[in-house]
């Protein structure tokens, strides 16, 4: 039921998720941060049961941190991180699958538009996209992104598309997801643009 979607632009990517943590008829929390910060210049929006969401994002981000420590600070490109992540999903699939669907985005200097976005599902598929969405949200947001997305947009335009999508979901999606968190990844790193409910608020 999670809403996870992302938009790339010239100079970076934007990733947005809802903040609901619920099961059956019970709402556990409304301020969950579902966008894991993987490295200094990459982040991953994750959807799925909370156990796998947390386990998988921490597994990936800590392995990426280990790589940097073991390799004298050398950073993995977003492309390499995405393929590593997909490889782990594929490995686990025929053992004990991670039931997560992911939108991974990052910034690399030597990539033409700076930002690159990858969409992955729990079966281990991986595809580079200009924009994407996981779950029910895709039914509502993809058509908006199809229409509004342009090559060479700036951050402001990309965030506007994200906000357009959120308005649409609030109006038409059956489930009430009142809080969203939006993060941007650009040359300066990962930063939270908007968090309707503070994740650190316990």
């Amino acid at each position, binding site marked *: 039921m999670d809403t996870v979607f992302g938009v790339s632009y010239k100079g970076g990517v934007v990733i947005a998720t809802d903040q609901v943590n619920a099961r059956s008829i019970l709402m556990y929390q409304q301020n969950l941060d579902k966008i894991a910060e993987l490295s200094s210049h990459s982040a991953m929006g994750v959807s799925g049961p909370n156990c796998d969401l947390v386990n998988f994002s921490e597994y990936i981000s800590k392995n990426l941190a280990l790589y940097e420590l073991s*390799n*004298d600070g*050398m950073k*993995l*490109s977003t*492309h*390499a991180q995405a*393929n*590593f992540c997909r*490889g782990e999903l594929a490995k686990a699939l025929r053992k004990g699958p991670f039931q997560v669907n992911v939108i991974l985005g990052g910034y690399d200097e*030597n990539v033409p538009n700076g930002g690159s976005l990858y969409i992955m599902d729990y079966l281990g598929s991986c595809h580079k996209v200009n924009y994407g969405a996981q779950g029910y949200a895709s039914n509502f947001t993809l058509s908006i992104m199809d229409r509004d997305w342009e090559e060479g947009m700036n951050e402001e335009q990309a965030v506007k598309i994200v906000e357009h999508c959120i308005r649409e979901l609030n109006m038409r999606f059956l489930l009430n997801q009142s809080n969203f968190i939006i993060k941007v990844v650009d040359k300066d790193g990962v930063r939270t643009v908007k968090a309707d409910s503070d994740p650190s608020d316990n």
Partner: protein
Amino acid sequence: MARRYDSSTTTFSPEGRLHQVEYAIEAINNAGTSVGILAKDGVVMASEKKVTSGLLAPARTSEKTYKLCPHATCTVAGLTADANILIDQARLRAGRYAYQYQEPIPIENLVEHVCNYKQAYTQYGGLRPFGVAFLFAGYDIHHGFQLYQSDPSGNYSGWKATVIGANNQAGKSLLKTEYGSSSSSGDEMKTDENPAKDETEMPTTVEALRLAVKVLNKTMDGAAASPDKLELFAMTLDEDGNCVHKILNAKEVEAVIAEVESETATAGDS
């Protein structure tokens, strides 16, 4: 006295040494020389082929130079059979990295993996160490062209130019004086008013090949250089940014040898 502590690789001597590892390093000093030189636009490795018998079937593969992946090649000094195992390991590692990350493996990562594999044989299991030293030449986007040397202990280091195998000390001392001074500036006297440049200038691949042949001439002890005794390898980038691995053919080797000969003949002429 140290003999008591010689046999087991995994035992220190009272002086804190691992004799088996040291003996393995000694074994390489009898092997055919290999010199590696880092250039501005590539890496060059030249090896002495130890011709054992005229009856040997002409080899289809090299005994000295091995390609590890699209952007890395190594040369070997030591026990070829041992080397084959390690080269398999290196190729596997490079391939698995490329599968996992869909990107070429950073060269130091590859070298360190081979060296960690070697190190295990100095610490576990009571097996003897590998009697091989390698020169690794490679390219990656992080650090450009690189040259590494590794030995049976599992130690490795990055070099601008180095020599392994027989007479490597003589080769290294020649490199110390000749590497970084291009033939044009080599004629200037180093006086107080004109001190040698602090920054050594890297040679081009063409110059490096000549220097490598010069080194082998020295280490091969006056034996006449010829294409069947020398193997010359050069790694460069093509215009698309892909690595080119080239083992020079007999004619090209002849040409380099001839150039070196004429250079040494005219050296010292004012």
